Protein backbone atom coordinates (compact mmCIF):
# COMPACT_ATOMS: atom_id res chain seq x y z
CA UNK A 1 0.00 0.00 0.00
CA UNK A 2 1.16 3.53 -0.70
CA UNK A 3 1.62 6.25 1.92
CA UNK A 4 -1.73 7.80 0.89
CA UNK A 5 -3.64 4.54 1.29
CA UNK A 6 -2.06 3.85 4.67
CA UNK A 7 -2.69 7.39 5.89
CA UNK A 8 -6.32 7.17 4.74
CA UNK A 9 -6.83 3.82 6.43
CA UNK A 10 -5.32 5.20 9.61
CA UNK A 11 -7.54 8.28 9.52
CA UNK A 12 -10.63 6.15 8.93
CA UNK A 13 -9.79 3.85 11.84
CA UNK A 14 -8.88 6.66 14.24
CA UNK A 15 -12.00 8.66 13.39
CA UNK A 16 -14.27 5.65 13.69
CA UNK A 17 -12.92 4.69 17.10
CA UNK A 18 -13.06 8.28 18.29
CA UNK A 19 -16.60 8.69 17.01
CA UNK A 20 -17.83 5.70 19.03
CA UNK A 21 -16.69 7.40 22.25
CA UNK A 22 -18.02 10.81 21.21
CA UNK A 23 -21.50 9.51 20.42
CA UNK A 24 -21.92 7.94 23.83
CA UNK A 25 -20.49 11.03 25.56
CA UNK A 26 -22.96 13.37 23.87
CA UNK A 27 -25.87 11.00 24.34
CA UNK A 28 -25.21 10.38 28.03
CA UNK A 29 -24.55 14.01 28.91
CA UNK A 30 -27.97 14.94 27.50
CA UNK A 31 -29.64 12.31 29.67
CA UNK A 32 -27.59 13.36 32.70
CA UNK A 33 -28.82 16.91 32.28
CA UNK A 34 -32.40 15.62 32.51
CA UNK A 35 -31.66 13.44 35.55
CA UNK A 36 -29.68 15.98 37.52
CA UNK A 37 -32.19 18.76 36.78
CA UNK A 38 -34.94 16.56 38.21
CA UNK A 39 -32.80 15.82 41.24
CA UNK A 40 -31.96 19.47 41.83
CA UNK A 41 -35.60 20.53 41.61
CA UNK A 42 -37.27 17.67 43.49
CA UNK A 43 -34.42 16.58 45.76
CA UNK A 44 -35.63 12.97 45.36
CA UNK A 45 -32.83 10.49 46.18
CA UNK A 46 -33.66 8.22 43.20
CA UNK A 47 -32.71 11.00 40.78
CA UNK A 48 -29.47 11.58 42.61
CA UNK A 49 -28.62 7.88 42.45
CA UNK A 50 -29.48 7.83 38.74
CA UNK A 51 -27.23 10.82 38.07
CA UNK A 52 -24.40 9.11 39.94
CA UNK A 53 -24.74 5.71 38.28
CA UNK A 54 -25.05 7.00 34.71
CA UNK A 55 -22.55 9.74 35.49
CA UNK A 56 -19.92 7.16 36.38
CA UNK A 57 -20.37 5.44 33.02
CA UNK A 58 -20.25 8.80 31.28
CA UNK A 59 -17.00 9.82 32.97
CA UNK A 60 -15.27 6.50 32.21
CA UNK A 61 -16.20 6.82 28.56
CA UNK A 62 -15.19 10.48 28.43
CA UNK A 63 -11.74 9.92 29.92
CA UNK A 64 -10.89 7.16 27.46
CA UNK A 65 -12.42 9.07 24.55
CA UNK A 66 -10.05 12.00 25.17
CA UNK A 67 -7.11 9.77 24.30
CA UNK A 68 -8.53 8.86 20.90
CA UNK A 69 -9.21 12.56 20.33
CA UNK A 70 -5.59 13.52 21.02
CA UNK A 71 -4.36 11.02 18.44
CA UNK A 72 -6.98 12.36 15.98
CA UNK A 73 -5.69 15.89 16.38
CA UNK A 74 -2.01 15.00 15.99
CA UNK A 75 -2.81 13.02 12.90
CA UNK A 76 -3.54 16.14 10.84
CA UNK A 77 0.01 17.32 11.33
CA UNK A 78 1.64 13.89 11.23
CA UNK A 79 0.09 12.48 8.07
CA UNK A 80 -1.73 15.34 6.33
CA UNK A 81 0.63 18.30 6.57
CA UNK A 82 -0.54 19.42 3.10
CA UNK A 83 -3.95 20.27 4.54
CA UNK A 84 -2.59 22.74 7.11
CA UNK A 85 -0.11 24.21 4.65
CA UNK A 86 -2.77 24.86 2.03
CA UNK A 87 -5.92 25.53 4.05
CA UNK A 88 -4.81 25.93 7.68
CA UNK A 89 -5.93 29.58 7.72
CA UNK A 90 -9.53 28.59 7.01
CA UNK A 91 -9.94 24.97 8.15
CA UNK A 92 -7.82 25.68 11.23
CA UNK A 93 -10.17 28.39 12.51
CA UNK A 94 -13.13 26.13 13.44
CA UNK A 95 -10.68 23.44 14.55
CA UNK A 96 -8.97 25.82 16.99
CA UNK A 97 -12.37 27.08 18.14
CA UNK A 98 -13.23 23.48 18.97
CA UNK A 99 -10.09 22.89 21.01
CA UNK A 100 -10.33 26.23 22.85
CA UNK A 101 -14.01 27.10 23.37
CA UNK A 102 -15.31 23.58 23.42
CA UNK A 103 -12.89 20.87 24.51
CA UNK A 104 -10.57 22.94 26.74
CA UNK A 105 -13.55 24.33 28.67
CA UNK A 106 -15.64 21.16 28.52
CA UNK A 107 -13.10 18.92 30.21
CA UNK A 108 -12.32 21.57 32.80
CA UNK A 109 -16.00 22.08 33.71
CA UNK A 110 -16.42 18.32 33.82
CA UNK A 111 -13.43 18.05 36.16
CA UNK A 112 -15.03 20.51 38.55
CA UNK A 113 -18.37 18.66 38.25
CA UNK A 114 -16.65 15.38 39.19
CA UNK A 115 -14.64 16.68 42.12
CA UNK A 116 -17.33 19.11 43.20
CA UNK A 117 -19.86 16.35 43.86
CA UNK A 118 -21.33 16.90 47.33
CA UNK A 119 -18.96 19.80 47.95
CA UNK A 120 -20.68 22.53 45.95
CA UNK A 121 -24.08 24.14 46.20
CA UNK A 122 -26.36 21.85 44.19
CA UNK A 123 -27.48 24.59 41.80
CA UNK A 124 -23.87 25.54 41.12
CA UNK A 125 -23.12 21.86 40.59
CA UNK A 126 -26.04 21.54 38.18
CA UNK A 127 -24.91 24.57 36.21
CA UNK A 128 -21.50 22.92 35.78
CA UNK A 129 -23.20 19.98 34.10
CA UNK A 130 -25.14 22.36 31.85
CA UNK A 131 -21.87 24.06 30.89
CA UNK A 132 -20.28 20.67 30.22
CA UNK A 133 -23.19 19.65 27.98
CA UNK A 134 -23.23 22.98 26.20
CA UNK A 135 -19.50 22.87 25.46
CA UNK A 136 -19.78 19.20 24.44
CA UNK A 137 -22.33 20.11 21.79
CA UNK A 138 -20.18 23.12 20.87
CA UNK A 139 -17.48 20.57 20.06
CA UNK A 140 -19.79 18.84 17.62
CA UNK A 141 -20.74 22.23 16.19
CA UNK A 142 -17.15 23.29 15.39
CA UNK A 143 -16.00 19.90 14.17
CA UNK A 144 -18.94 19.69 11.80
CA UNK A 145 -18.23 23.25 10.64
CA UNK A 146 -14.66 22.18 9.83
CA UNK A 147 -15.90 19.03 8.10
CA UNK A 148 -18.55 21.00 6.20
CA UNK A 149 -15.74 23.13 4.77
CA UNK A 150 -14.04 20.00 3.43
CA UNK A 151 -17.31 18.86 1.83
CA UNK A 152 -18.13 22.24 0.29
CA UNK A 153 -15.46 24.95 0.74
CA UNK A 154 -16.84 28.44 1.41
CA UNK A 155 -15.67 31.68 3.02
CA UNK A 156 -12.14 31.57 1.54
CA UNK A 157 -10.08 33.49 -0.99
CA UNK A 158 -7.08 32.17 -2.89
CA UNK A 159 -3.84 34.01 -2.09
CA UNK A 160 -0.88 32.69 -4.10
CA UNK A 161 -0.84 28.96 -3.38
CA UNK A 162 -2.71 29.02 -0.08
CA UNK A 163 -6.25 29.74 1.08
CA UNK A 164 -7.07 32.70 3.33
CA UNK A 165 -10.06 33.23 5.59
CA UNK A 166 -12.42 35.66 3.89
CA UNK A 167 -15.80 35.32 5.56
CA UNK A 168 -16.03 33.28 8.74
CA UNK A 169 -19.82 33.52 8.88
CA UNK A 170 -20.00 31.69 5.52
CA UNK A 171 -18.43 28.68 7.22
CA UNK A 172 -21.24 28.70 9.76
CA UNK A 173 -24.06 28.96 7.24
CA UNK A 174 -22.53 26.33 4.94
CA UNK A 175 -25.43 24.03 3.93
CA UNK A 176 -23.24 20.89 4.13
CA UNK A 177 -22.55 21.87 7.77
CA UNK A 178 -25.99 22.89 9.01
CA UNK A 179 -27.82 19.89 7.56
CA UNK A 180 -25.32 17.38 8.92
CA UNK A 181 -24.99 18.93 12.39
CA UNK A 182 -28.61 18.19 13.32
CA UNK A 183 -28.22 14.65 12.02
CA UNK A 184 -25.15 14.05 14.20
CA UNK A 185 -26.77 15.61 17.29
CA UNK A 186 -29.89 13.44 17.05
CA UNK A 187 -27.71 10.39 16.29
CA UNK A 188 -25.84 10.91 19.55
CA UNK A 189 -29.04 11.36 21.54
CA UNK A 190 -30.36 8.16 19.96
CA UNK A 191 -27.17 6.37 21.03
CA UNK A 192 -27.73 7.59 24.60
CA UNK A 193 -31.36 6.47 24.60
CA UNK A 194 -30.67 3.02 23.16
CA UNK A 195 -27.70 2.53 25.50
CA UNK A 196 -29.70 3.44 28.60
CA UNK A 197 -32.57 1.20 27.51
CA UNK A 198 -30.25 -1.73 26.87
CA UNK A 199 -28.32 -1.46 30.15
CA UNK A 200 -31.55 -1.17 32.15
CA UNK A 201 -32.97 -4.19 30.30
CA UNK A 202 -29.83 -6.14 31.22
CA UNK A 203 -30.51 -5.47 34.89
CA UNK A 204 -34.11 -6.68 34.55
CA UNK A 205 -32.86 -9.84 32.83
CA UNK A 206 -30.58 -10.33 35.86
CA UNK A 207 -33.66 -9.87 38.11
CA UNK A 208 -32.33 -6.71 39.74
CA UNK A 209 -33.71 -5.73 43.15
CA UNK A 210 -33.42 -2.07 41.98
CA UNK A 211 -36.79 -2.21 40.22
CA UNK A 212 -37.75 1.45 40.61
CA UNK A 213 -34.30 2.69 39.60
CA UNK A 214 -34.05 0.70 36.37
CA UNK A 215 -37.73 1.08 35.56
CA UNK A 216 -37.26 4.86 35.48
CA UNK A 217 -34.02 4.50 33.50
CA UNK A 218 -35.61 2.19 30.96
CA UNK A 219 -38.55 4.53 30.44
CA UNK A 220 -36.24 7.51 30.02
CA UNK A 221 -34.19 5.54 27.47
CA UNK A 222 -37.21 4.43 25.42
CA UNK A 223 -38.87 7.86 25.43
CA UNK A 224 -35.60 9.56 24.46
CA UNK A 225 -35.09 7.13 21.57
CA UNK A 226 -38.68 7.59 20.38
CA UNK A 227 -38.36 11.38 20.47
CA UNK A 228 -34.92 11.54 18.86
CA UNK A 229 -35.27 9.06 16.00
CA UNK A 230 -37.92 10.87 13.86
CA UNK A 231 -35.80 14.05 13.91
CA UNK A 232 -32.72 11.94 13.21
CA UNK A 233 -34.31 10.48 10.10
CA UNK A 234 -35.73 13.84 9.04
CA UNK A 235 -32.31 15.50 9.33
CA UNK A 236 -30.83 12.59 7.40
CA UNK A 237 -33.17 12.83 4.45
CA UNK A 238 -32.87 16.63 4.46
CA UNK A 239 -29.25 16.16 3.41
CA UNK A 240 -30.03 14.52 0.07
CA UNK A 241 -30.98 17.77 -1.75
CA UNK A 242 -27.82 19.41 -0.34
CA UNK A 243 -25.69 16.51 -1.61
CA UNK A 244 -27.42 16.58 -4.99
CA UNK A 245 -26.57 20.25 -5.31
CA UNK A 246 -22.97 20.33 -4.03
CA UNK A 247 -21.61 16.78 -4.48
CA UNK A 248 -23.68 15.31 -7.33
CA UNK A 249 -21.25 12.43 -7.87
CA UNK A 250 -21.12 11.31 -4.23
CA UNK A 251 -22.80 7.97 -4.88
CA UNK A 252 -20.30 7.16 -7.65
CA UNK A 253 -17.17 7.57 -5.48
CA UNK A 254 -16.97 3.81 -4.92
CA UNK A 255 -19.04 0.97 -6.38
CA UNK A 256 -20.14 -0.26 -2.93
CA UNK A 257 -20.83 3.15 -1.40
CA UNK A 258 -24.58 2.61 -1.44
CA UNK A 259 -24.32 -0.33 0.96
CA UNK A 260 -23.32 1.55 4.14
CA UNK A 261 -25.89 4.23 3.35
CA UNK A 262 -28.59 1.59 2.93
CA UNK A 263 -27.71 -0.20 6.17
CA UNK A 264 -27.70 3.08 8.07
CA UNK A 265 -31.18 3.93 6.81
CA UNK A 266 -32.50 0.46 7.69
CA UNK A 267 -31.11 0.70 11.23
CA UNK A 268 -32.57 4.20 11.68
CA UNK A 269 -36.01 3.10 10.48
CA UNK A 270 -35.91 0.00 12.69
CA UNK A 271 -35.01 1.97 15.81
CA UNK A 272 -37.79 4.48 15.14
CA UNK A 273 -40.38 1.77 14.61
CA UNK A 274 -39.34 -0.35 17.58
CA UNK A 275 -39.12 2.57 20.00
CA UNK A 276 -42.61 3.79 19.05
CA UNK A 277 -44.01 0.25 19.36
CA UNK A 278 -42.42 0.02 22.81
CA UNK A 279 -44.02 3.25 24.07
CA UNK A 280 -47.52 1.78 24.70
CA UNK A 281 -45.86 -1.27 26.28
CA UNK A 282 -44.42 0.97 28.99
CA UNK A 283 -47.90 1.15 30.49
CA UNK A 284 -47.98 -1.00 33.61
CA UNK A 285 -44.46 -2.19 32.74
CA UNK A 286 -45.77 -4.67 30.18
CA UNK A 287 -42.47 -4.60 28.32
CA UNK A 288 -40.60 -5.69 31.46
CA UNK A 289 -43.08 -8.42 32.36
CA UNK A 290 -43.03 -9.85 28.82
CA UNK A 291 -39.25 -10.32 29.24
CA UNK A 292 -38.33 -11.23 25.63
CA UNK A 293 -38.20 -7.54 24.52
CA UNK A 294 -35.52 -7.06 27.19
CA UNK A 295 -33.18 -9.33 25.27
CA UNK A 296 -33.81 -7.37 22.06
CA UNK A 297 -32.97 -4.14 23.92
CA UNK A 298 -29.59 -5.53 24.98
CA UNK A 299 -28.86 -6.80 21.47
CA UNK A 300 -29.84 -3.38 20.11
CA UNK A 301 -27.10 -1.45 21.97
CA UNK A 302 -24.52 -1.64 19.13
CA UNK A 303 -27.00 -0.78 16.35
CA UNK A 304 -26.90 3.05 16.49
CA UNK A 305 -23.08 2.94 16.76
CA UNK A 306 -22.87 0.79 13.64
CA UNK A 307 -25.30 3.08 11.80
CA UNK A 308 -23.23 6.15 12.70
CA UNK A 309 -20.03 4.59 11.35
CA UNK A 310 -21.83 3.67 8.12
CA UNK A 311 -23.05 7.25 7.83
CA UNK A 312 -19.52 8.58 8.20
CA UNK A 313 -18.16 6.15 5.63
CA UNK A 314 -20.72 7.42 3.13
CA UNK A 315 -20.01 11.08 3.88
CA UNK A 316 -16.22 10.80 3.79
CA UNK A 317 -15.64 8.24 1.05
CA UNK A 318 -18.20 10.04 -1.07
CA UNK A 319 -15.94 13.11 -1.01
CA UNK A 320 -13.06 11.28 -2.68
CA UNK A 321 -10.78 11.87 -4.57
CA UNK A 322 -10.94 15.28 -2.91
CA UNK A 323 -9.80 16.21 0.58
CA UNK A 324 -11.24 19.70 0.12
CA UNK A 325 -13.94 19.25 -2.48
CA UNK A 326 -12.81 20.67 -5.81
CA UNK A 327 -9.71 22.37 -4.33
CA UNK A 328 -7.24 19.90 -2.82
CA UNK A 329 -6.85 16.27 -3.80
CA UNK A 330 -6.32 13.74 -1.02
CA UNK A 331 -3.10 12.43 -2.60
CA UNK A 332 -1.64 15.97 -2.68
CA UNK A 333 -2.20 16.58 1.03
CA UNK A 334 -0.32 13.63 2.47
CA UNK A 335 2.91 14.42 4.41
CA UNK A 336 6.30 13.73 2.91
CA UNK A 337 7.02 10.75 5.13
CA UNK A 338 7.91 7.16 4.33
CA UNK A 339 5.07 4.71 3.93
CA UNK A 340 6.93 2.54 6.48
CA UNK A 341 6.61 5.26 9.15
CA UNK A 342 2.88 5.56 8.53
CA UNK A 343 2.57 1.78 8.60
CA UNK A 344 4.35 1.66 11.96
CA UNK A 345 2.05 4.28 13.50
CA UNK A 346 -0.98 2.60 11.90
CA UNK A 347 -0.13 -0.71 13.56
CA UNK A 348 0.72 0.89 16.91
CA UNK A 349 -2.38 3.09 17.09
CA UNK A 350 -4.81 0.52 15.80
CA UNK A 351 -3.69 -2.05 18.37
CA UNK A 352 -3.77 0.54 21.15
CA UNK A 353 -7.24 1.66 20.08
CA UNK A 354 -8.50 -1.87 20.24
CA UNK A 355 -7.06 -1.98 23.77
CA UNK A 356 -8.82 1.31 24.58
CA UNK A 357 -12.16 0.14 23.23
CA UNK A 358 -11.87 -3.11 25.21
CA UNK A 359 -10.82 -1.15 28.33
CA UNK A 360 -13.80 1.16 27.92
CA UNK A 361 -16.10 -1.79 27.52
CA UNK A 362 -14.55 -3.61 30.49
CA UNK A 363 -14.74 -0.58 32.80
CA UNK A 364 -18.31 0.23 31.76
CA UNK A 365 -19.29 -3.42 32.22
CA UNK A 366 -17.71 -3.35 35.68
CA UNK A 367 -19.61 -0.18 36.61
CA UNK A 368 -22.85 -1.59 35.20
CA UNK A 369 -22.55 -4.90 37.07
CA UNK A 370 -21.90 -3.16 40.38
CA UNK A 371 -25.15 -1.32 39.95
CA UNK A 372 -26.28 1.96 41.46
CA UNK A 373 -24.75 1.52 44.89
CA UNK A 374 -21.08 2.33 45.07
CA UNK A 375 -18.90 -0.31 46.59
CA UNK A 376 -15.78 0.96 48.39
CA UNK A 377 -13.44 0.20 45.48
CA UNK A 378 -13.98 2.72 42.69
CA UNK A 379 -14.05 1.50 39.09
CA UNK A 380 -11.80 4.24 37.78
CA UNK A 381 -9.70 6.97 39.44
CA UNK A 382 -11.92 9.70 38.04
CA UNK A 383 -15.06 8.30 39.54
CA UNK A 384 -13.85 8.00 43.13
CA UNK A 385 -16.02 10.87 44.17
CA UNK A 386 -19.07 9.83 42.17
Amino acid sequence: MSAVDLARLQFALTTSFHFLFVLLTLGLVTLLVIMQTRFTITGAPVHERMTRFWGRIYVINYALGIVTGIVMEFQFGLNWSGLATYAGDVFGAPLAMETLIAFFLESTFLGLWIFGWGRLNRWVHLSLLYLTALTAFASAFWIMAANGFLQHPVGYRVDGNVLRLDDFSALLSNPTFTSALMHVIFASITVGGVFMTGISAYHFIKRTPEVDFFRRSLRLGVVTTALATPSLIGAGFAQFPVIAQYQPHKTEAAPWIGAPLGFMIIIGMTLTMVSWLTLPLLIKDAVIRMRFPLYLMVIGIPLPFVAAIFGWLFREIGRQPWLIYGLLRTEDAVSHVDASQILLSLIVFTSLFVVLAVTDWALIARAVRRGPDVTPAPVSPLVVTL
Partner: protein
Amino acid sequence: METLWLVVLGTLTVGYFALAGFDYGTGLLLPFRRREIALQRMNPFFLGNEVWLVAAIGVLFAAFPRLEGELLSGAHSTFTLVLAGLVLFMAAVQLRLWWWLVFMGALMVSVGWGLFLAHLLHAPWPVAFVMPVLFAVHGWVFQARRWKVFPVTALLCALPIPLAFSSIDVTGLMAHNDTLGLLAWVAIPIIPLVVLVQWSIVAISSR
Protein backbone atom coordinates in the same frame (compact mmCIF):
# COMPACT_ATOMS: atom_id res chain seq x y z
CA MET B 1 0.08 39.85 16.35
CA GLU B 2 3.03 37.53 15.89
CA THR B 3 4.31 38.06 19.46
CA LEU B 4 0.81 37.64 20.85
CA TRP B 5 0.43 34.19 19.27
CA LEU B 6 3.90 33.09 20.31
CA VAL B 7 2.92 34.02 23.86
CA VAL B 8 -0.39 32.12 23.60
CA LEU B 9 1.33 29.03 22.21
CA GLY B 10 4.10 29.36 24.80
CA THR B 11 1.59 29.63 27.66
CA LEU B 12 -0.32 26.55 26.51
CA THR B 13 2.85 24.50 26.07
CA VAL B 14 4.24 25.62 29.44
CA GLY B 15 0.85 24.75 30.97
CA TYR B 16 1.04 21.23 29.58
CA PHE B 17 4.60 20.49 30.64
CA ALA B 18 4.24 22.11 34.06
CA LEU B 19 1.23 19.90 34.79
CA ALA B 20 2.74 16.84 33.07
CA GLY B 21 5.20 16.36 35.92
CA PHE B 22 2.36 15.46 38.30
CA ASP B 23 1.15 12.38 36.52
CA TYR B 24 4.06 11.23 34.36
CA GLY B 25 6.37 11.91 37.30
CA THR B 26 4.14 9.87 39.58
CA GLY B 27 4.06 7.10 36.96
CA LEU B 28 7.86 7.04 36.69
CA LEU B 29 8.22 6.74 40.46
CA LEU B 30 5.70 3.94 40.89
CA PRO B 31 8.34 1.20 41.31
CA PHE B 32 9.75 3.12 44.30
CA ARG B 33 6.69 4.40 46.10
CA ARG B 34 3.55 3.14 47.80
CA ARG B 35 1.53 2.77 44.66
CA GLU B 36 -2.03 3.14 45.94
CA ILE B 37 -1.27 6.35 47.80
CA ALA B 38 0.83 7.78 44.98
CA LEU B 39 -1.90 7.17 42.40
CA GLN B 40 -4.60 8.53 44.70
CA ARG B 41 -2.68 11.73 45.23
CA MET B 42 -2.51 12.16 41.45
CA ASN B 43 -6.30 11.89 40.95
CA PRO B 44 -7.24 15.61 40.76
CA PHE B 45 -4.43 16.21 38.26
CA PHE B 46 -5.17 13.25 36.02
CA LEU B 47 -6.07 14.48 32.49
CA GLY B 48 -5.51 18.06 33.65
CA ASN B 49 -2.40 18.39 31.52
CA GLU B 50 -3.68 16.72 28.37
CA VAL B 51 -6.31 19.43 27.84
CA TRP B 52 -3.45 21.95 27.57
CA LEU B 53 -1.74 19.76 25.00
CA VAL B 54 -4.90 19.54 22.88
CA ALA B 55 -5.34 23.32 23.06
CA ALA B 56 -1.68 23.89 22.15
CA ILE B 57 -1.89 21.68 19.06
CA GLY B 58 -5.15 23.38 18.03
CA VAL B 59 -3.48 26.79 18.23
CA LEU B 60 -0.43 25.46 16.42
CA PHE B 61 -2.66 24.28 13.57
CA ALA B 62 -4.70 27.46 13.20
CA ALA B 63 -2.11 30.15 13.98
CA PHE B 64 1.01 28.46 12.57
CA PRO B 65 -0.44 26.28 9.80
CA ARG B 66 2.75 26.11 7.76
CA LEU B 67 4.80 25.12 10.79
CA GLU B 68 2.45 22.53 12.30
CA GLY B 69 2.64 19.95 9.51
CA GLU B 70 6.39 20.23 9.06
CA LEU B 71 7.06 20.05 12.78
CA LEU B 72 4.89 17.00 13.45
CA SER B 73 5.56 15.02 10.28
CA GLY B 74 9.29 15.84 10.61
CA ALA B 75 9.36 13.85 13.85
CA HIS B 76 6.81 11.21 12.86
CA SER B 77 8.20 8.24 14.79
CA THR B 78 8.93 10.35 17.88
CA PHE B 79 5.30 11.42 18.05
CA THR B 80 4.18 7.86 17.45
CA LEU B 81 6.10 7.01 20.63
CA VAL B 82 4.69 9.98 22.59
CA LEU B 83 1.12 9.20 21.58
CA ALA B 84 1.48 5.46 22.16
CA GLY B 85 2.81 6.25 25.63
CA LEU B 86 -0.07 8.65 26.29
CA VAL B 87 -2.69 6.11 25.26
CA LEU B 88 -1.04 3.39 27.33
CA PHE B 89 -0.64 5.63 30.39
CA MET B 90 -4.21 6.89 30.40
CA ALA B 91 -5.71 3.45 29.83
CA ALA B 92 -3.46 1.81 32.44
CA VAL B 93 -4.15 4.40 35.14
CA GLN B 94 -7.86 3.84 34.74
CA LEU B 95 -7.81 0.08 34.38
CA ARG B 96 -5.44 -0.41 37.35
CA LEU B 97 -4.66 -3.99 36.54
CA TRP B 98 -0.89 -3.89 36.23
CA TRP B 99 1.01 -0.96 37.73
CA TRP B 100 4.03 -1.55 35.46
CA LEU B 101 1.87 -0.58 32.47
CA VAL B 102 1.39 2.84 34.09
CA PHE B 103 5.16 3.05 34.51
CA MET B 104 5.77 1.96 30.89
CA GLY B 105 3.31 4.53 29.57
CA ALA B 106 4.89 7.34 31.58
CA LEU B 107 8.36 6.26 30.47
CA MET B 108 7.36 6.20 26.79
CA VAL B 109 5.74 9.65 26.90
CA SER B 110 8.64 11.28 28.72
CA VAL B 111 11.36 9.65 26.61
CA GLY B 112 9.31 10.64 23.53
CA TRP B 113 9.25 14.28 24.60
CA GLY B 114 12.97 14.02 25.33
CA LEU B 115 13.60 12.75 21.79
CA PHE B 116 11.54 15.66 20.46
CA LEU B 117 13.69 18.05 22.50
CA ALA B 118 16.85 16.48 21.05
CA HIS B 119 15.31 16.75 17.58
CA LEU B 120 14.54 20.48 18.06
CA LEU B 121 18.05 21.20 19.36
CA HIS B 122 19.79 18.92 16.84
CA ALA B 123 21.37 17.34 19.90
CA PRO B 124 22.54 13.70 20.27
CA TRP B 125 19.89 11.22 21.44
CA PRO B 126 21.06 10.81 25.07
CA VAL B 127 19.65 14.33 25.61
CA ALA B 128 16.29 12.54 25.47
CA PHE B 129 16.78 11.38 29.07
CA VAL B 130 16.59 14.96 30.32
CA MET B 131 12.79 14.87 30.22
CA PRO B 132 12.17 11.63 32.16
CA VAL B 133 14.69 12.74 34.79
CA LEU B 134 13.01 16.14 35.18
CA PHE B 135 9.53 14.60 35.34
CA ALA B 136 10.69 12.05 37.91
CA VAL B 137 12.30 14.75 40.10
CA HIS B 138 9.16 16.87 39.88
CA GLY B 139 7.01 13.85 40.60
CA TRP B 140 9.08 13.11 43.70
CA VAL B 141 8.81 16.71 44.91
CA PHE B 142 5.04 16.52 44.43
CA GLN B 143 4.65 13.13 46.11
CA ALA B 144 6.98 14.00 48.99
CA ARG B 145 5.23 17.38 49.37
CA ARG B 146 8.37 19.49 49.22
CA TRP B 147 6.33 22.58 48.37
CA LYS B 148 9.29 24.99 48.65
CA VAL B 149 11.18 23.58 45.68
CA PHE B 150 7.95 22.73 43.90
CA PRO B 151 7.74 25.85 41.66
CA VAL B 152 11.36 25.34 40.67
CA THR B 153 10.94 21.76 39.47
CA ALA B 154 7.65 22.67 37.78
CA LEU B 155 9.46 25.36 35.79
CA LEU B 156 12.32 22.99 34.99
CA CYS B 157 9.82 20.53 33.46
CA ALA B 158 7.94 23.26 31.65
CA LEU B 159 10.72 25.24 30.05
CA PRO B 160 13.02 23.01 27.90
CA ILE B 161 10.63 22.36 25.01
CA PRO B 162 9.08 25.86 24.74
CA LEU B 163 12.61 27.31 24.89
CA ALA B 164 13.92 24.97 22.21
CA PHE B 165 10.84 25.91 20.22
CA SER B 166 11.74 29.59 20.30
CA SER B 167 14.76 28.89 18.10
CA ILE B 168 12.37 28.36 15.16
CA ASP B 169 11.92 31.35 12.89
CA VAL B 170 8.17 31.67 12.28
CA THR B 171 8.21 34.38 9.62
CA GLY B 172 5.99 33.33 6.75
CA LEU B 173 4.72 30.27 8.62
CA MET B 174 1.87 32.01 10.42
CA ALA B 175 -1.74 32.41 9.40
CA HIS B 176 -3.03 35.66 7.92
CA ASN B 177 -4.09 38.41 10.34
CA ASP B 178 -7.74 37.79 9.40
CA THR B 179 -7.57 34.35 11.05
CA LEU B 180 -5.34 35.45 13.92
CA GLY B 181 -7.54 38.42 14.81
CA LEU B 182 -10.66 36.27 14.95
CA LEU B 183 -9.05 33.63 17.15
CA ALA B 184 -7.50 36.17 19.53
CA TRP B 185 -10.98 37.05 20.81
CA VAL B 186 -11.41 33.44 21.84
CA ALA B 187 -7.98 32.40 23.05
CA ILE B 188 -7.19 35.29 25.36
CA PRO B 189 -10.18 35.17 27.74
CA ILE B 190 -10.27 31.36 27.81
CA ILE B 191 -6.81 30.65 29.19
CA PRO B 192 -7.29 32.50 32.52
CA LEU B 193 -10.74 30.93 32.86
CA VAL B 194 -9.30 27.41 32.54
CA VAL B 195 -6.53 28.23 35.02
CA LEU B 196 -9.13 29.45 37.50
CA VAL B 197 -11.37 26.40 37.14
CA GLN B 198 -8.47 23.92 37.26
CA TRP B 199 -7.18 25.63 40.38
CA SER B 200 -10.65 25.28 41.93
CA ILE B 201 -10.60 21.55 41.11
CA VAL B 202 -7.38 21.07 43.07
CA ALA B 203 -8.56 23.34 45.88
CA ILE B 204 -11.92 21.61 46.22
CA SER B 205 -10.53 18.07 46.08
CA SER B 206 -7.98 18.73 48.80
CA ARG B 207 -10.61 20.17 51.13
